[in-house]
């Protein structure tokens, strides 16, 4: 498959948006959807729809099989040991809440420490904050360095004998830093501490191998992986899913229900209460197929090329400051332009059809540290090209012109 042709698989680029060709540089926020994913949703609803698991009629049996097929595909794609280590959630945020809540219930007590990093998205901080309030635990932050990285050493420094779990992002959605997850996991395990990885930005862009990473939990959002909204994945080692209590209660996750007590179902049902996002799970199989068709190695290469090109172009442009300079970096560039607030940049760029994001990107801790209230961010997907970067640069120049800057 030719990476040049990939854009054609995304119908959103067929039409002009407000008289402009769309230059979509907001994939770290949410990725656009290839036709095969959208078609799958359409076909499922119009030809095959049924709830899964509960009925024995033809449509229900077929839907249940399709639903479970996605679980198998995900297992294979992330190289999990067991199909039942894949739990479907509504998104990565829910996946992390699930872990924090159930792990917290069972294993966290007053005075215990949860170690996260200054790079974390609010989704990997707020759920732990809840436990800080309810269980009186403490939250420690591993420091980000001047390059916008969190190193193995900065994690090591904050581990104490009270550290009960570590939560780290795989790839920062602000600086693009790729964390040494495998090394962190290995260090943590040597001290008996489990590790949760926020894989929101890792999953769409990096080769995933759960058995190699050896992390205990890995959270993924489908919509950032060219999949539908409303579906996420929690990978968790089987022993955790067996040991931890259930998260939400309802239909499908039970064993026996009596007035006096309730027993819970086996994996994976135990963590999938109520009617799930059936159509989204089924269509997500197409996202996996799409990624497999291109090949994650090709995606990594393509995005690396874009990143290097973008850094080169933006560095040449006076008055642009790129936030962070991590040695290992994914396709995310946050930047500021001297004299122009990121929001103003975003508005002006938008007039040219260039979609970027401006704000704190749900990383207020990091922005506090950087002394910035907001940054602008361009982030890449498989459909981006060097032309998109050129257009970004050109439109940034237009911003400077409007603001009378050189």
């Amino acid at each position, binding site marked *: 498959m030719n990476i040049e042709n990939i854009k054609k698989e995304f119908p959103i680029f067929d039409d002009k948006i407000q008289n402009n060709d769309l230059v979509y540089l907001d994939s770290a926020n949410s990725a656009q959807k290839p036709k095969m994913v959208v078609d799958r949703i359409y076909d499922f609803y119009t030809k095959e729809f049924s709830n899964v*698991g*509960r009925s*024995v009629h033809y449509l*229900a*049996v077929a839907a*249940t*099989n399709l639903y479970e097929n996605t679980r198998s595909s995900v297992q294979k794609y992330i190289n999990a040991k067991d*199909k*039942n280590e894949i739990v479907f959630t509504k998104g990565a945020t829910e996946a992390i809440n699930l872990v924090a809540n159930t792990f917290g219930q069972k294993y966290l007590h007053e005075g215990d420490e949860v170690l996260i990093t200054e790079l974390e998205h609010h989704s990997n901080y707020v759920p732990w904050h809840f436990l800080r309030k309810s269980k009186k635990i403490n939250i420690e932050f591993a420091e980000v360095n001047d390059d916008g990285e969190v190193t193995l050493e900065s994690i090591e420094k904050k581990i104490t004998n009270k550290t009960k779990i570590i939560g780290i992002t795989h790839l920062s959605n602000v600086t693009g830093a790729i964390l040494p997850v495998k090394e962190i996991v290995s260090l943590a395990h040597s001290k008996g501490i489990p590790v949760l990885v926020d894989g929101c930005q890792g999953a769409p862009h990096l080769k995933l191998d759960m058995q190699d990473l050896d992390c205990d939990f890995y959270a993924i959002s489908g919509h950032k992986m060219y999949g539908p909204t409303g579906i996420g994945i929690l990978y968790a080692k089987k022993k955790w899913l067996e040991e931890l209590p259930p998260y939400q209660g309802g239909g499908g996750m*039970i*064993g*026996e229900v009596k007035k006096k007590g309730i027993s819970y*179902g*086996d994996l994976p*049902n135990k963590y999938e209460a109520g009617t799930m996002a059936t159509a989204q799970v089924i269509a997500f199989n197409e996202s996996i197929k799409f990624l497999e068709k291109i090949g994650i190695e090709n995606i990594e290469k393509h995005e690396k090329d874009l990143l290097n090109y973008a850094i080169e172009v933006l560095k040449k442009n006076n008055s642009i400051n790129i936030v962070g300079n991590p040695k290992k970096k994914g396709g995310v560039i946050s930047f500021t332009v001297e004299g122009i607030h990121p929001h103003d940049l975003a508005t002006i760029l938008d007039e040219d059809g260039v979609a970027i994001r401006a704000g704190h990107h749900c990383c207020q801790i990091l922005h506090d540290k950087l002394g910035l209230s907001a940054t602008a961010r361009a982030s890449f997907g498989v459909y981006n090209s060097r032309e998109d970067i050129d257009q970004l640069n050109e439109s940034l120049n237009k911003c400077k012109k409007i603001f009378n800057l050189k």
Partner: protein
Amino acid sequence: MNLKELYQEIILDHGKNPRNLRRTENFNKDAKGHNPLCGDKVHVYLKLNENKKVEDISFEGQGCAISMASASIMTDLVKGKEEFEVKEIVNDFLDMIKKKDQLNNNILNEDDKTKLMCLSGVKQYPMRVKCATLSWHTLTSAINNSQEEINTERN
């Protein structure tokens, strides 16, 4: 017509009048099985003598024609067999239901095999395979004396 294959006379007969639907007195092995999605339940009781031969086997439970017939036929066929033979029959049956076209064991005679093959109609009904296999998994669990309740949602 697949339904005719699924609901053969012998299945309907065993479903309606299950053999060995009772509780063996002085059983020395037992296990419970459960299908949480549909509510089917079975409890298998075994009495092995000192030579590990099945002196008696019975079951209690409620369920659909397929699950009742399957338990009924199963208990009929393994009675009098030795423990290792029972295991072989169970494995052979489960293999047949999942993938093979016929039974391969040398323990059951042709008549018994024909009887058992009557259950093969469920292969066309994936959601019903669990109905046919619940009692068999439960028998295995009883023989192995495992405390774990059999649950057909466990893969």
